[in-house]
């Protein structure tokens, strides 16, 4: 193998393009129908919809929430990531755990916690006799979303801080910079890409969120789409709201791409980089403890005690409903996980083995499926299915398909990195030894990437166990899942009934976080055929 640039196309043809076409169609057709539905009105009606002042209010609210959540998450995640990597205190592992654990409490469960803990009939009033004003609206949505999303930023910043080449800081010190200057001029610039990547995730999450804003009754685009669709039955306006939300999401992606294009972090020079950082918290170290206390209190202690309190009250008569919703969640999650992985395998394979092929575009589509706000996607799917395949409307099959498209990006990661660790020559060896392309893949590649496939199955399964917005709009009539029950019981202020469902979701999400941490902590394995020396 003289030149490393040569890539190998082994399996090609239908095993790649059929799944690829399914993914592209699964995203493109609904979006096309969303636009068709949106322009299906006369001009004056459209003009009336588009110049409503309400659109501006929604835009303002959505942006305000995104900016607020991003700011709050930054204020929490940045010091936490610093303490977890550079702090000179004991228990840095505990700090890392604190930075990740809130991921196991989905936004709508956190919204439930805030609603169920405050107000005249909240847990704190009933348990402690302290009446906290009911948290709802902007403040409630801000706290719930920030608590759930700051771990995305934390994880990014932490791995960036861990990966920093300490010798850069040391040479800056030797060139006469003070500690503060090193922080501002050497460390911060290097954290930029990680920060922007993390904040994009957070902003996309806020734009796509439906559970929190609907429970908190804070009118963003997603909540308005839901109101128009479910309450007012104004599907034309709902379609336009979805398009506005899509445009907003698209412009965020463009801003991100532009920011990242202007950010360059030079690779390491020759020689091995030192990654053991000096431990400093500066003179403000004592502030760490109250800070950690507040974060732990809001993101862990408050949810667990509230859930525990209400679950004790609701558990006694909840069993049948609980079993039904667990069965419902499983019946959607298992096929979704399977389908997602079946679609992800050929796409990941194509992206690793054929990097210069136009098939690469498939990966973009997968990320699009993830970035499109779920409510907009669901609405588009409804329009398309009513127009093209009315028999599919509100079936479990359609729900599973749409969720598979949505979670595809999540499944691609582990499978993709598993493929990256396989050696294309191994597959070619199988060909030379008499196997057809497909058999060579089955016998020489699939067994090797199995761990990646299992990880993807688990991630998608657990994500689907807590999925709310797509299930909300697309599930069959009368279909119950854990997430749907938490939402509807909370919406009706039936906190005790919601609690056991919410607890189960937290349990499943905690498993997800555990898997995430395990993958995160594992170093990339050496090449499986690398000689032992």
């Amino acid at each position, binding site marked *: *193998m*003289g030149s490393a640039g*040569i890539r190998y196309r082994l399996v090609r043809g239908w095993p790649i393009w059929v799944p690829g076409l399914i993914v592209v169609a699964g995203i493109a057709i609904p979006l096309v129908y969303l636009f068709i539905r949106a322009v299906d009105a006369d001009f004056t009606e459209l003009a009336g919809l588009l110049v409503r002042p309400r659109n501006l209010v929604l835009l303002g609210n959505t942006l305000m929430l995104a900016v607020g959540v991003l700011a709050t998450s930054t204020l929490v995640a940045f010091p936490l990531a610093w303490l977890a990597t550079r702090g000179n205190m004991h228990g840095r592992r505990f700090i890392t755990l604190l930075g990740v654990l809130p991921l196991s409490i989905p936004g709508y469960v956190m919204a439930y916690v805030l609603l169920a803990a405050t107000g005249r009939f909240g847990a704190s009033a009933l348990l402690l006799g302290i009446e906290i004003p009911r948290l709802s609206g902007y403040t409630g949505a801000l706290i719930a979303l920030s608590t759930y999303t700051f771990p995305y930023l934390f994880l990014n910043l932490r791995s960036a801080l861990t990966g920093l080449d300490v010798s850069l800081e040391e040479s800056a010190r030797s060139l006469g910079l003070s500690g503060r200057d090193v922080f501002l001029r050497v460390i911060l610039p290097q954290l930029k890409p990680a920060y922007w990547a993390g904040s994009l995730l957070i902003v996309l999450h806020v734009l796509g969120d439906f559970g929190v804003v609907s429970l908190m009754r804070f009118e963003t685009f997603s909540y308005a789409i839901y109101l128009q669709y479910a309450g007012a039955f104004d599907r034309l306006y709902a379609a336009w709201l979805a398009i506005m939300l899509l445009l907003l999401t698209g412009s965020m992606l463009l801003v991100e791409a532009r920011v990242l294009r202007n950010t360059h972090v030079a690779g390491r020079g020759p020689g091995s980089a030192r990654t053991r950082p000096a431990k400093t918290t500066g003179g403000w170290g004592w502030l760490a403890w109250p800070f950690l206390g507040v974060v732990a209190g809001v993101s862990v202690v408050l949810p667990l005690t509230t859930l525990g309190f209400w679950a004790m009250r609701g558990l006694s008569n909840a069993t049948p409903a609980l079993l039904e919703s667990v069965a419902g969640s499983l019946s959607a999650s298992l096929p979704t996980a399977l389908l997602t992985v079946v679609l992800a395998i050929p796409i990941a394979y194509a992206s690793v083995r054929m990097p210069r092929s136009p098939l690469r575009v498939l990966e973009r589509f997968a990320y699009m499926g993830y970035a499109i706000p779920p409510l907009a996607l669901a609405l588009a799917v409804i329009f398309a299915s009513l127009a093209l395949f009315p028999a599919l409307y509100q079936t479990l099959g359609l729900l599973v398909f749409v969720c598979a498209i949505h979670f595809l990006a999540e499944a691609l990661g582990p499978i993709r990195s598993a493929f990256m660790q396989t050696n294309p020559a191994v597959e070619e*060896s199988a060909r*030379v030894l008499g196997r057809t392309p497909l058999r060579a893949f089955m016998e020489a590649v699939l067994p*090797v990437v199995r761990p990646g496939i299992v990880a993807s199955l688990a991630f998608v399964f657990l994500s689907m166990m807590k999925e709310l917005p797509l299930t909300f709009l697309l599930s069959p009539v009368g279909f119950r899942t854990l997430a749907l029950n938490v939402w509807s019981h909370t919406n009706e202020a039936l906190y005790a009934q919601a609690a056991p469902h919410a607890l189960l979701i937290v349990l499943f999400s905690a498993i997800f976080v555990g898997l995430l941490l395990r993958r995160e902590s594992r170093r990339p394995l050496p090449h*499986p*055929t690398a000689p*032992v*020396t």
Partner: protein
Amino acid sequence: MTTPAPILVVSGIHRRHSASLPAVVRDLSFTVDEGEMFALLGPSGCGKTSFLRVLAGFDAPDAGTITYRGRVLNAHDGPNIPIEQRGIGFVFQNHALFPHLTVAENVGFGLRGEPDRDANVETLLHSMGLSGLGGRYPHELSGGQQQRVAIARSVAPRPSLILLDEPFSNLDARLRHETRTEIRNILRQFGITAILVTHDQEEALSFADRVAVMKDGRILQIGAPEVMYHTPRTPFVARFLGLTNVVLAEASGTTAQVPFGTVRLSEPASGPTWVSLRPEHLSLEAEAPGVACHGTIVRREFKGHDITFTVRLGTSDILVHTDNRLSQRVGDHVRVVPLEPAVVLQDELPVDCP
């Protein structure tokens, strides 16, 4: 042994990776005889691996045909025999063992459905010096052992032809030499024809019955190792097969004028001609009355059993390889004495000469 017949006929093979890129293999034609060890030698990027991949069937040629055991594998507009039906073995540079299979399973991979598969594998492991390692996994083996497993795996289905893509370059120097000899013996023993691709001239010269030197996708010269070394046809071949002095000579008949005097020529020529003189075919004579000394020693490298001198003659430097008994020092005036005729080279401008 009867007269060997060509097992492989390559004719006019052309290959470009994409329409926008220049061709990496240009008009390649040669034959390989049954049982022969054939080496394709060239610097990295010369197209040797690209050609090997076309031969194995991983990539398709843009023009030309390959005939293997009388069957056309790959005609320009004819059928293209799939990789798995060609019956040609391939050994990869990085071994490419199946990481999820044991050594025995790796070696037996190409013997699917054969009744005496286990016995075959066992015999092969034994003859490769891998007895007792059948149950191990590739990552539990040393580099040299992995190399043997890779060879055993490709030998197992008894192909008539095996392609070796820089198979020794991952091994350290001592191990490389050992493995090379061993593998050559095993291939001979099984009567398997081999094509070795390498950028290491010593490897090619010692492994192969015939060597083809490649540059920019073309074969410059094919021949037996000694012939190639002693009578290279172009400056590139002369330089690639070992240290040499390529100098411009003024030829007239069987002799020529070079900067250090008159030399005999390997074949008659006339006018300005590039010639090659290997350093070991030159010697030095010390300054003495009646000896015209045009050269000055500018560098002396003592390497144990020999010495390499660099002698400056006007504007050009000449390398001279002598035994370790010469006592000349840097700065001494010397005369360069040719011991063998200079090899006349074809008119390829030695652009890569310093």
